[in-house]
């Protein structure tokens, strides 16, 4: 059987950029609200009315600066933010007609400067203080940028080949191409941040070493791999994150069959299914509860339906059926909804004797990510498996801060929240460093 090969248009950014005219018309629609609700609803509190006004006057560089001052990853956020839930969801024009396309306007302004390589920020007056940042996802980049702007000397460590975290490896090209994430890394380097890739923090000794060489450490570790399902035939299941990663950085290596089943119904599952669908596969998502308990955003679900992805609910996979190393089906059992569990959602229960096999040649799992395992090895206090932090994002260890997905014990994780964490931690680190003359004497 031939693996499906993606058509060339399949992995391109979904929404075209605004033309200058479209941007002007849309920007002029904004009311320039006072004490604006969109600004309040953006987790990084970008001054949205101001940046939009600057687009309407043709001041694109100023607009980008307004955005990036509050959110160094404005280019990524413009593409990946669940704007319906955040800024655009709060826009007053949504009350009776269409809210302002804030995300697309943000992308228009930021792309304008980043495509031209314009650097808007300078490193601050050197303080002689050094900060290590581990993990180059949105949290790490945001913290690094803010610290560099304050004049601290920052080194960013990343275990992977490319920096950018999930913006580089995890967000499907339909939303964000790799280049966009890389432009943000370039902007960070232009601020004097040293980006050291293929360097992993693995244990407490490593952390202690960092603490001896740096005045503070910020951990933006993100989360782990997709957890195991614990069912027979597990070895044949592809990891959703891996599939997405391949579609981004090495699409030619993507090998999916003609009939793909994706297990899970969160946003990541939909992303993995979208990749399979765009690669030409007949794609079915199986979820053990119903449409109502799905964690994916409504607009994501509708997008998936629009892409031609099929869903089967109240279905629990119990075994991957394979013949001669080749998957032939996914054995499932029918479920029904029982009493609510601790999360308040009805608990799914298997219907006895309802086993059936869904014929397919590829199975992908996308049932969330593992909690940050390294945290235990580092000797950090945990909360629900995530790194415990206080309001300033300080961990239980002195001079160690953390933010982003690895601390997101409550609520859904998102890029923009990781960016805000980076800002909060940078401010806290700066305040702490400005107060105390470092004891270990790494700086004079």
């Amino acid at each position: 059987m031939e693996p499906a090969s993606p058509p060339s248009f399949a992995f391109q950014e979904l929404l075209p950029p605004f033309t200058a005219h479209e941007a002007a018309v849309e920007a002029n629609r904004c009311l320039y609200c006072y004490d604006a609700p969109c600004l309040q609803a953006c987790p990084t509190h970008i001054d949205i009315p101001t940046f939009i006004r600057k687009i309407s006057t043709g001041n694109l560089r100023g607009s980008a600066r307004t955005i990036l001052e509050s959110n160094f990853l404005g280019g990524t956020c413009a593409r990946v933010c669940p704007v319906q839930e955040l800024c655009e969801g709060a826009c007053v024009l949504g009350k009776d007609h269409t809210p302002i396309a804030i995300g697309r306007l943000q992308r228009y302004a930021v792309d304008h400067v980043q495509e031209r390589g314009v650097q808007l920020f300078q490193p601050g007056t050197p303080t002689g203080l050094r900060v290590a940042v581990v993990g180059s996802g949105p949290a790490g980049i945001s913290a690094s940028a803010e610290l560099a702007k304050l004049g601290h000397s920052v080194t960013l460590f990343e275990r992977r080949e490319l920096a950018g975290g999930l913006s580089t490896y995890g967000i499907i090209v339909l939303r964000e191409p790799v280049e966009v994430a890389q432009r943000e890394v370039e902007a960070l380097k232009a601020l004097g941040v040293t980006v050291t890739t293929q360097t992993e923090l693995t244990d407490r000794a490593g952390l202690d070493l960092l603490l001896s060489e740096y005045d503070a450490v910020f951990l933006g570790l993100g989360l782990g791999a997709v957890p195991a399902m614990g069912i027979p035939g597990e070895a044949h299941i592809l990891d959703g994150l891996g599939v997405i990663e391949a579609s981004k950085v090495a699409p030619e290596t993507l090998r999916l069959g003609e009939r793909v089943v994706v297990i899970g119904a969160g946003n990541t599952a939909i992303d993995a299914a979208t990749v399979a669908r765009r690669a030409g596969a007949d794609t079915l998502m199986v979820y053990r509860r119903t449409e109502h308990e799905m964690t994916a955003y409504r607009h994501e679900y509708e997008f998936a339906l629009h892409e031609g992805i099929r869903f089967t609910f109240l279905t629990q996979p119990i075994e991957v059926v394979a013949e001669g190393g080749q998957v032939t089906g996914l054995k499932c059992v029918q479920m029904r909804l029982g009493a609510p569990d601790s999360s308040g959602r009805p608990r799914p229960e298997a219907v006895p004797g309802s086993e059936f096999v869904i014929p397919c040649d590829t199975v992908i799992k996308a049932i969330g990510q593992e909690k940050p395992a390294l945290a235990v090895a580092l000797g950090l206090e945990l909360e629900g498996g995530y790194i415990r932090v206080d309001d300033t994002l300080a961990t239980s260890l002195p001079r160690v801060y953390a933010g982003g997905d690895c601390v997101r014990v409550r609520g859904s994780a998102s890029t923009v929240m990781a960016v805000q964490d980076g800002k909060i931690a940078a401010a806290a680190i700066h305040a702490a460093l400005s107060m105390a003359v470092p004891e270990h004497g790494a700086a004079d």
Partner: protein
Amino acid sequence: MADLSINFAGIRAPNPFWLASAPPTNSGPQIHRAFEHGWGGAVWKTIGAPVLNISNRYGGLSLGGQRLLAINNVELISDRPLDVNLREIAEVKRMWPDRAVIVSAMVDADPKAWRDIVMMIEDTGADGIELNYGCPQGMSERGMGAAVGQVPEMCQLNTHWVTSVTKLPVIVKLTPNVTHITDPAHAALAGGANALSLINTINSIMRVDLDTLQITPNIGGRGTHGGYAGPAVKPIALNMLTELMTDAEVLRSGVPICGMGGIQTWRDAAEFLLLGATSLQVCTAAMHYGYRIVEDMIDGLSNWMDDKGFATIYDVAGRSLPQVSTFGQLDLSYQAVARINPDKCIQCNLCYVACNDTAHQCIDLYAEGGIRVDPGFDPRMNGKGVADTRPTPVVREPDCVGCALCVNVCPVDGCIEMVSVPSGRESVTWDQLTAQRPAVTQQWAAMEAYRDEAGIEIH
């Protein structure tokens, strides 16, 4: 169905919508097409002395993405040979006997020159003559156009030269580039004008190009002042029309007035009619959208007249003039306050910032549960729910001076209303007050004494 037909100083037309003397009336084939679309008349692009036009000629005004709120032109009169224009005018009139065909003319300030052109125009069978004393650029430097319109004596003399040799109705088209529009109007009447039309274009520099630093339009590296017209000039035109329609001498003469300047829709047209115009001309809107706009103009005006119970244009004409007053006759005791309808309010807080920064600080913000709050927010309250917890603006009515700024900035129609409230004071106008107590115009102490007595508190 309302009857839109008019008889304007003897010139008859099936509707009051005429194309103004300008590029839309440059040639016979164009006017054929315009009449096919339903225009009631056309004032031919000004003919007269030989000229050469230049390129480019138009600068456009765009605001907030809205194109062409006005045109500024450095165009002269018709640059087509006189005999060609005259032949085409005759043809058009022959083919369209029911439409108004009026010829705009401009020649040197010389009775012989005027007499010659009048004779030629009469030979075409046209219904009337419009004297162009308006063009603010190019022609005025040659002693024509605004150079005549701006000097009442010249205006009277030139008009007299024409009216004394023609049987045709003579319309004098006034330039707005004067301090008092009534001065040239009086001069035109003294010269025997049968009708007036206004406004011609306003002197202007449209724009400076921020890339090239050139004045726009850029004519080979140079620019000059030009005539400004289009939707943006309507309020100026309405005011000048009103000045004429409330002027004793103009009223005594009984001459009809043709209104123009910024007419883009039937609604604009209705406003000109309500302030006394009985025929209308359109230029920029036709240049923007083409002749087809007249269909909605006719249809919309007719439907509105039916709704209002107006049978003819003359039932509409001047209906709003009785409301026109002078400042001295306005009631100082009238009190209005702004009232916000919370059901319509979308909480953009533009009224709040406008009142707070630049008016009288009488709008407060109230959170759910009736607690007065300051603007600003708790950064920990991210994401959803912001829209539901927005504070609502409420006017502190006793402190509201009724300036109406908030009404004007509110983006929602009918959300803020200026409501009349009893002021508890006896009605008095400034004219009455100052007649009774002349000292209030001279001394602040007297003014304050009066305010105390009347119970007027100023914040």
